[in-house]
């Protein structure tokens, strides 16, 4: 294979594999920014993947499948929101429970859908003009589907909202110092519910992308630990949507290269990179002031109560 086609293939696969990571990471960034840790990403992604496949398969409309995956992911995340925000249950346990439930339900319900190829996956698009750029054109603007570009757009929009709008300030204040936000008239519980919902919807869509675009079919456990990479990515991205974009593609490229470089490097070792890097990032930012500047929400995992009990 010529080096050109090697680069084209690598970039193209990176973009394709990074997209579900990006969707779910953007969601988790919003969830955590509001002070809620949701370890249920894997569970939300897998129910999203199954529901998207079932709807796309039965209706023949993949976009309807994507829509439903968002709805189902969002609905599923509300279990976590209710437990951790309303009941103030432990967020770690609740998130783990959500993942177990998601893997279990999708495994049982999805069994009769296993192994059927989806005849109507998301269509590939060619971006007119841009696709004629040498190397980058065929790599980034050909053979991808619209969701890939929607994810990029989403990262930019969510970055803008988080840093440049009042809504963003409100979300961050709820994750930083909910008591002060509350005293300024912010409805802490409502903001947190909405951010968990955003996280669920985006994780669901990330899962849906897998089953109607990336690999148009349903297999049990097809998210294969992606949800945990997302948890690592959220830290790696310093809770910033644009860095989330960079991180998602970076990890996707590592993942792709772990297959490509098999002859020279054990693929298993490259696969540990996201996890090792997340720990390294945590060590680097562990000094308090740096942590502040890097965006780690102070009130993460701490349930908020007005102190009226």
């Amino acid at each position, binding site marked *: 294979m010529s080096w050109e086609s090697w680069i084209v293939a690598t970039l193209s696969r990176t973009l394709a594999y990074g997209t579900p990571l990006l969707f779910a990471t953007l969601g988790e960034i919003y969830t955590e920014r509001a002070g809620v840790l949701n370890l249920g990403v894997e569970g939300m992604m897998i129910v999203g993947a199954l529901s998207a496949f079932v709807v796309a398969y039965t209706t023949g409309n993949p976009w309807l499948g994507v829509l439903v995956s968002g709805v189902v992911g969002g609905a599923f995340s509300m279990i976590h929101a209710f437990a951790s925000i309303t009941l103030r*249950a*432990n967020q770690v346990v609740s998130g783990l429970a959500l993942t*177990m439930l998601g*893997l*279990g339900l999708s495994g049982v319900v999805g069994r009769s859908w296993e192994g059927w190829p989806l005849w109507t996956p998301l269509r590939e698009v060619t971006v007119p003009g841009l696709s004629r750029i040498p190397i980058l054109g065929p790599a980034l603007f050909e053979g991808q589907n619209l969701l890939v570009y929607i994810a990029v757009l989403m990262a930019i929009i969510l970055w803008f909202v988080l840093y440049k709008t009042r809504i963003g300030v409100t979300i961050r204040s709820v994750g930083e110092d909910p008591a002060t936000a509350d005293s300024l008239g912010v409805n802490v519980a409502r903001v947190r519910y909405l951010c968990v919902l955003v996280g669920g919807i985006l994780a669901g869509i990330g899962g849906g992308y897998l089953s109607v675009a990336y690999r148009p079919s349903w297999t049990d456990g097809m998210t294969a630990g992606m949800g945990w990479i997302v948890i690592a990515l959220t830290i790696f991205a310093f809770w910033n949507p644009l860095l989330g974009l960079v991180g998602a593609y970076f990890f996707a490229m590592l993942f792709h290269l772990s297959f490509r470089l098999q002859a020279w490097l054990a693929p*298993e070792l490259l696969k540990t990179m996201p996890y090792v890097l997340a720990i390294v990032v945590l060590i680097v930012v*562990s000094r308090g002031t740096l942590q502040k500047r890097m965006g780690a929400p102070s009130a993460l995992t701490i349930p908020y109560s007005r102190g009226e009990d």
Partner: protein
Amino acid sequence: MRLPGWITVKRRPAPSPWLVFGISLAAIAAALIVAGIFFQIYGVSPFRAYGDILRGALGSKLGVTETIRRMIPLLVIGVGLSVALRALFWNIGADGQLLMGAVAASGIALFSGLPGPLLLPAMLLGGFLAGAAWGLVPAILKARLGINDVITTLMLNYVAISIVEWLIHDPWKGPTMRGFAYTDKFPAAAILPTIAGTRIHWPTLLIGLVAAILLFLIVKRTRVGFEIRVAGENPHAARFSGISQTKVTLFAMMISGGLAGIAGVGEVAGIHHMLLAPNNISLGYGYTAIIVAWLARRNPLAVILTSFLFGVIMRGGDVIKVSLGLPFQLVNVFNGLILFFLIGSEILMRYRIRVGRRQQA
């Protein structure tokens, strides 16, 4: 949360053990009912499903012994986790610690060249040390740098998975295994004895039971146990009374990681007799054991009971796979539901809720 006027909520002092027991039972029952509704929707009679599970797990000698076989790793890990959780250390990484224990045991079994009688003790010790080391990394990171234990323990699970994958595909791949990704079979002297006619590797079970009793006594009766309890219940008071949070964290994680490592030794030396794919060594025992320890209210003795319960559920997954053709994933539905109802029910322990009487606080 705003409540309608006819509900009053008051903080409860310390709930009595009976109340805790009752609420826990009610939570499990509620989870089973919801799972039953799910069965019904899925087109399987819940009565038939639960009947099959009970008969398959407890109704025959084979059933009981297989239940105990599933219970062993949950018991050994759960006992250690109950101590870690008591010290307020969130060890989500027991699965990784288990795998590292399995790796150490496999390395010793296959390559150490130790004489036969020394092999098993060395494997158990090596497994304990490897699991403890894997657990101490996040413990040190938390104690020294204040780094979130949930994330680091979780991440290290995936690093451990990759290490096992790499070993079985590359350096440790068994030359006699015809290209399959396993190590070679362990020599006979490296295989844990089992109770005749069963897959109960009793040394591991015994370690779990002894650890449960010992740790119960340590937590209740000793200085370090006292420090763990204070540090876990009131970190503020602990700091003022000169209790070292670092010492408590490291001790708890050495125990928790080490026992998870022993569980890994049990699985490879008692069941599989080789190192193989990570998801074959552990069916998520490290995660299920969190529920086991949580349900036992972090009491090491109660873990004996709760690990048996989850042994029944896991065995139930095996049974129902055959009798009703439902996937083993069903176990995760049970686990998830029980966990949700458990944490949901905790509000009932923390607060007294009265309905129908208006009362001014």
